[in-house]
């Protein structure tokens, strides 16, 4: 995966999205996620 040409790699964006989702769950904005 090309990381050298981008400031943020795809990996990093995926981590940021996952951490943002975890934060939303932690502060109660996302309370239940059905499966």
């Amino acid at each position: 995966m090309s990381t050298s040409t981008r400031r943020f790699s795809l990996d990093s964006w995926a981590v940021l999205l996952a951490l943002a989702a975890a934060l939303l769950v932690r502060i109660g904005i996302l309370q239940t996620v059905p499966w």
Partner: protein
Amino acid sequence: MASSVTLPQVRPTSFSGRFFGLIPGILLLLVVGYAGKFIEQSIAHYGKARHLVLPNIEYVLWAILLGLAISNTIGVPAIFRAGVATYEFWLKAGIVLLGARFLLGDVLRLGGLSLVLVFIELAVALTFMTYLGRGFKLSPKLVTLLAVGSSVCGVSAIIATQGAIDADEEDASYAIAAILALGAISLFVFPVVGHALHMSDHAYGLWTGLAVDNTAEATAAGALYSDAAGKVAVLAKTCRNALIGFVVLGYAIYWASKGQAAEVKNKGAFLWSKFPKFVLGFLLISLLATLSVFTKPQLTALGNLSRWAFLLTFAGVGLRTNLRELGKQGARPFIVGAVGEVAIALITLGLVFGADRWFHL
């Protein structure tokens, strides 16, 4: 990315154009993935209502099969391709969120064991593939790409290595096609072998994480066996992924010493650029879960978010695999890859049985 061989894309140039261009494909991933889940639930309800014992085929397999059917019959229209190619993004986000379902102690225990096995697997696989490729008279750089792809982490490793050793696009395409085709086959073969050998969830998950090359396919092959096997497969595969930078750096230095690749000036920066950042995210979420930052319902919510991300991934695995395109890439790299994969699968199976005997997985 994997899709460069199997799923040619048309990329708009502006940021907003690229962003909105992703939406149709992401919706297609969601529809195909959810259809897989719907089929699994419908069969279960039908069996229950009629008191029939029907085989429980997981949504994972249905999503992959539906994706394969679309990709190999009507094809994936151009409007969906950019969004479908995001399946690796969802995979990585899903792996980070999966960290919530591991206590850090389990990660260190299983991850430590996995790392030891990964080192053995790497040494054996790299050596075996190198000699096998030379025996089949493949070009030296294609041999390097196949060795890295089958020993570390599939397509991502091939792409990272291609840039580092100045390999031809054509060689990279051959290697990627071989690894993708073999990954698709392993999805169906590994669960059958696992059941035939009555492997425990942990042993099977560890085997899958060690032997299946692409992270998406390793995750899917694990989840096809059981939820617990899927978790262990992701953990073992993540350990393998974490070593990608070191292997690519080793090959970059080797080819630079032969004057056939650019010299690596800052090795630390090189390693960091190749290191998969989602491994750090996975460890961070696992640490937060271990420190009881999340309540039990919140851990369930994070686990379910991870499942939704994987659902998109599994749909993408099927949708990006075009068997006709893979077949056009030539027989010799595929044969070398196939022989190597079978050998690696058998060696890692032996390693896992040995670990199971000593550490009672």
